C-alpha cells in the first residue's frame, strides 16, 4: 500500500513536471503578437510569418518564400523545426540553435546549411562547391593581377598554374625569414619583394582568395608541414 502510494506520487510529479516543461517550451516559442502560422504537410515544420496576422492572406511572393523554406526544411531534416520568418525574409530557428540558416534574399529560394544529422543534400553539396569555386576563381584573378604589386609583375609569372607554391608543406621553417612561416606569410613575402607591393592583412579577402586558389591546386597531396 505504502509502495503504491509513492509510485502514484512519483507519476503525478513526473506528469506535472512534463506539463510544466511543455508549458514553458510552448511559452518560449509563443508568437510575438498575432503571427500567421504555416505548417508543413507532415506537421513537423512550423513557421511563424512576421508581417501577417493569423487568417490573413499572404502576398504571392511571400507565400513562395514560405513554401520554399518549408520544402528546404523538409529536405534537410526529419526533426521538428519551429522557425520565424521575419519581414526581411531572414529566418530564426526557435527550437534548435544548431540549425543555422543564412539570411534569405527576397524572391530567392532560402539557402540552408545545416544537415540536422542527415547526409548533405545535393543542393548543399552544390552550394559548398559553388562557394569554393567562387573563391578559387577570385584567387585565380588576384594571382594573375599585377595590381597586387607595383612593378607589373604578377604571381603567375613565376608560378604558372600556381606551380612551385607547394601549399601542403606549410607552416615550415624558412631559413631566409629565420622562423616558421605560414603560407600567408610567404604570399606576403612575394607581394612585398618580387611584386614590390604592400602586404595584405591575413584576413584580407584577397589573401583568403589567394590561399584558396593556391591550396586548391594541391588537392589530394599529402599534408607535409615542414617539408622542404
Amino acid at each position, binding site marked *: 500500500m505504502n509502495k503504491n502510494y509513492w509510485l502514484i506520487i512519483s507519476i503525478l510529479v513526473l506528469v506535472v513536471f512534463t506539463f510544466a516543461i511543455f508549458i514553458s517550451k510552448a511559452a518560449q516559442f509563443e508568437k510575438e503578437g498575432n503571427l500567421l502560422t504555416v505548417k508543413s504537410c507532415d506537421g513537423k515544420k512550423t513557421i511563424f510569418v512576421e508581417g501577417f496576422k493569423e487568417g490573413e492572406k499572404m502576398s504571392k511572393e511571400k507565400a513562395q518564400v514560405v513554401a520554399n523554406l518549408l520544402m528546404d526544411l523538409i529536405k534537410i531534416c526529419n526533426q521538428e523545426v519551429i522557425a520565424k520568418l521575419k519581414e526581411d525574409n531572414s529566418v530564426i530557428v526557435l527550437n534548435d540553435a544548431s540549425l543555422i540558416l543564412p539570411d534569405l534574399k527576397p524572391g530567392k529560394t532560402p539557402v540552408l546549411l545545416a544537415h540536422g544529422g542527415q547526409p548533405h543534400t545535393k543542393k548543399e553539396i552544390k552550394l559548398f562547391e559553388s562557394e569554393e569555386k567562387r573563391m578559387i576563381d577570385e584567387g585565380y584573378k588576384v594571382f594573375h593581377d599585377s595590381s597586387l604589386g607595383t612593378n*607589373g609583375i604578377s604571381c*603567375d609569372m*613565376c608560378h604558372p*598554374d600556381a*606551380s612551385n607554391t607547394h601549399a601542403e608543406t606549410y607552416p615550415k621553417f624558412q631559413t*631566409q625569414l629565420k622562423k616558421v612561416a605560414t603560407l600567408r606569410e610567404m604570399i606576403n613575402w612575394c607581394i612585398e619583394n618580387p611584386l614590390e607591393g604592400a602586404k595584405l592583412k591575413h584576413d584580407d579577402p584577397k589573401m583568403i582568395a589567394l590561399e584558396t586558389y593556391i591550396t586548391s591546386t594541391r588537392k589530394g597531396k599529402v599534408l607535409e608541414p615542414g617539408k622542404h
Partner: protein
Amino acid sequence: MNNGFPQKTTGGIKRRDFLRMAAGTAVATISGVITPLVIKVAHGKGKLEPFTFAYISDAHLYAGNPNHRFVKAIKKAVADVNSLNPQPDFVFFGGDLAQLGQPDELELGKGILSDVKAKIHMMVGEHDWYFDMGRKWREFFGKDVYSFDHKGVHFVVLNSVIVKDYWTAPNMTPMERMKAMAQLDNPKGEAFTVGEEQRKWLKNDLSKISKDTPLIIFSHSPLYKYYRPWNFWTDDAEQVQEILFPFEKVTVIHGHTHQTVTNKIKNITFHGLLSTAWPWPYPPQGIPKLTIQMDRADPFNQFDGCGDGRVDILSSGEVNKTYNFWDRNPMEVTFERVSKETGSETPGPSY
C-alpha cells in the same frame, strides 16, 4: 624537385673545375669574377674553324623604372657578354625583350642592347609581338624571319610564335590581345606555330644549302611538343622537323622556357636558354629525358636560376651549350653527352 641532382653543381661539374676546363676558351672576367658564357657549335668532318657566340634571352622589360629588377638583370647580362675575352663572334637575343610589347619597352631594350660590343642577332618572342603584331619590333630590329651564314654554319631565325586569330571575333583591344598572350598558363591560349608560309620559306632557304652544312635554327618556342598548357610547344613542330631531318647536323636553340632543357629527336638536338628575368618551374609532365633539371630557384635571390650563356661550335659542326647561371655553377651540355644518350625517337610527349 631536384630529382636527386646535387644542388649547386651542374652535370657533376663544379664551378671551379668548369672554369679550369674553360680556361683558354671563352672566359670572361668581371670585377674578378670569371663568367663562362658561350654556346659552341661543332661539325663532324673537322673542317670548321671553331667559334663561339653568346646569348641573352627573355628579358621581359617593363618601361618607366630604370631600376626595375628586370632592367638590372638584362644590364647584368650585357656586362657579362661584353666582358668575354676573347669576344664571341656575335650575341644572339632569344626573344621576349618586352613584357607587354609596348613601344617604350622595346625602345628601352634596344637602348640597353646597343651597349653590346659584339654584333647582335635578334629573335622575336610572343611578348614582343602581340601588342602591335610586331610592327614596332620590326621597325627597330628588321625582319623577324631571316637566315645568315657564319664560318660555314647556316643560321636560321624563325618566328615560331604565330597563333590562330583569337582576338578579332571577341573584338579585343591590342592590350587585351597582348595580355591574353602574356599569360603563360592561359587555359584558352592558342598553340604556337611556325606556319605554312614560314615552312615554305624555310624549305626554300634550305634548298640552297648542302646537307652536310651544319644548321643552327633559332626559334622562340621549343620546336617540339613539350607541355601544351604553358605553350612550351610548337603545334606544327613535326612538319618543321621533317624539313630539318635531311641535314646531317641540326641544332635548334630556343627561348621561352626560362630553364635548362635538352632534347634530341633523331638528328636534331634542342637546347633551351636561360632568362635574365625569372626562371620557370618545370611543368608536371613532358620534360625531355636528356634534360638535366636545374634545382628550384631561391625566391629570395632575384638572380638565382637566371643568367645568360654561350654556344661553342666545334670544328665538327657539333654544339656544346653552356648555361651561365649567375648564382650557381654553370652547366655545360656537351655534344658528347647528348650523342651518348638515347634521345626520344618521337616528338615530345603529347598532352
